[in-house]
C-alpha cells in the first residue's frame, strides 16, 4: 500500500496550514483566494494566500477530498510558504507529484494536483 505511506497519511490526518481561508490583509499585504473543485470526485478546495513583499507570507487551505488531494495540498502549502511568488508560480505538476513520492496513476493525477491548480488560480 505504497500510495498511503506514513507521510501521506500524516498530512491527510493532520493537514498543515489547514483552516478557515478568511485571511485578513494587514498593512503592505494583499490576500488572494481561489476555489477549485474536482467534479468527478466531488472534491472541493479553497485556498488563500497572503502576499507581502512579493512573498507568500501566509497560506491556508480548507476543503474536502481524498487522502491524496488533501495530503498533496498540505505538503504544497508547506513547500511554498515564505517563497517568492515567482517561485511558487513556476512549480509544475510533475514537481508537485514528485513531492508526494508515490506513484500516481492517471486517474489520481487530478487529485494530486488539485491544490496546485487552486494555488495557481489564487496567485495574481
Amino acid at each position, binding site marked *: 500500500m505504497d500510495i498511503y505511506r506514513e507521510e501521506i*497519511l500524516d498530512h491527510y490526518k493532520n493537514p498543515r496550514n489547514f483552516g478557515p481561508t478568511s485571511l485578513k490583509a494587514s498593512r503592505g499585504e494583499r490576500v488572494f483566494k481561489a476555489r477549485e473543485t474536482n467534479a468527478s470526485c466531488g472534491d472541493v478546495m479553497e485556498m488563500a494566500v497572503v502576499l507581502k513583499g512579493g512573498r507568500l507570507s501566509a497560506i491556508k487551505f480548507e476543503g474536502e477530498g481524498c487522502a491524496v488531494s488533501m495530503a498533496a495540498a498540505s505538503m504544497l502549502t508547506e513547500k511554498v510558504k515564505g517563497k517568492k511568488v515567482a517561485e511558487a508560480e513556476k512549480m509544475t505538476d510533475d514537481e508537485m507529484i514528485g513531492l508526494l513520492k508515490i506513484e500516481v496513476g492517471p486517474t489520481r493525477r487530478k487529485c494530486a494536483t488539485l491544490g496546485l491548480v487552486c494555488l495557481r488560480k489564487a496567485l495574481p
Partner: protein
Amino acid sequence: MLDVNKIKKDFPILSRKVNGKRLVYLDNAATSQKPKAVIEAEVEFYRRHNANVHRGLHSLSEAATVIYEEARKTVAGFIGGEADELVFVRNATEGLNLVAWAWAAASLKRGDEILTSVIEHHSNLIPWQRLSRAKGLKLVVAGVAENGVLDMADFANKLTRKTKLVAIGHMSNTTGAINPVAKIVKMAKRVRARVAVDAAQSVPHLKVNFKDLGVDFLAFSGHKMLGPMGIGGVLIKKERQEEMEPFLTGGGMISEVWPQRATWAAGVEKFEAGTPNVAGAVGLAAAVEYLTKLGMARVYEHEKKMVAYALKRLGEIEGLRVIGPKTTESRGGVISFVMEGVHAHDIAQVLSSEGVAVRSGHHCTMPLHKRLKLAATTRASFYIYNDKKDVDALIDGLKKVKNVFT
C-alpha cells in the same frame, strides 16, 4: 442455482492477476466481463464473414446481412420485442439520445412536459435537458424517497396532462433499486404520456419483457450484459416509429435520394445510418444466448443471494453506511456505500491493491448524490461469476481500509 465455478472458467479475464492478487471483479454495473463464447463470436465474424451489410449481392455480403438480421431477432426476442422493433445503436446513451431527437423533438410541442427523476443516470437526464432547452419543453424531475427509491407520491403529483413523456430508469446504477415500471406505465397511460425506459441496468440482470411492460421505448447497452462494447439497442413500438424522424442521416437509412432531398427507408433501418457494428451485434447475440442458457430468473436469484450476503457482511464494518434499500426486495446486485472518514477514492485504491475492483465517485448520478448530500460513494456490483468468496475479499479489503485510515 448457478454453477459459479463453471461459469468463472468461461471468462478468460477472471484467471488473471491484478497487483499480484486474484482479480475480484465487482464493477459490473460499469461493464461486465465477456465470456469466451462472445469473444470468439466476434472474432469469428471478422475471420470468416466480414463484409458490409445491406449493400452487396456477393455471397459474403448476403451472408453478413443474414447474420446481422439473425442477431437482431435473437437480441430483440431476449427482451420480449420483435426484430422490427429493435434499432441497434452503440449503447443505452445513444438509444436515449435517439429517442430524444428522433421522436420527442418531432412529437412534443413548446410547453409540453417530460417527467424524469433525480435518480437517473446522466444518460437519461442530459438528453432531456438539452432537448427541453432547444424545444421550449419543461423538464420535471421527481424526487427520491428516504430509502433511496423513487418517491412515488411525488412522481404521481408531477405526472399531469401536460406530461407527454416519462423518462425513467428501470434499475438504479447507484442504489440498485428497481422501479415499478409496469405501474408507472399504467399511470402514464391515464394521462396519455409515452414512456421511455433506461434499461441499461435491468436487461443484464433480470427478465425484462418489452411487450408485457407496454413501454414505448427501452434502451440498453450490450457491454453490461456480457456483450462487446460499442453495441446496444433501443426497442421502439411500431406506432412510435411511425411518428419519428431519422436520427443520424446518410447511407443505409434512405429509400431514394435526389440532389436536394431524400426519402427514408422503412422500418428500423431508417434509424441506422452508416455501416453498423455487425461484429458487435453478433457478439451481443452470443451474449444473449449465453444468458438465455443460464436463465434470467436464475441470474436474478443468484444476485439476490449475493446482495443478501454482502449486506450482512457489510454490516460488520463499523462506520459503513449503505445508500439505498437495505433489503433484497425490489433491488438488483448493486450496493453503494460510504465509510466514515474515508473518501471513496481511497477506499477503491486500497481495494484495488488487493485485487478487488469497485467503482468510486458519483457513478454518473450527480443529482442523486447531491440530493443525498454525498460527494462520492463506493459501489460494488455483482454478476453471474461472483461468489461469496468475492464478497469476503471485499470485506477483507474494507477491513484493511479501516486499518490504513484509522
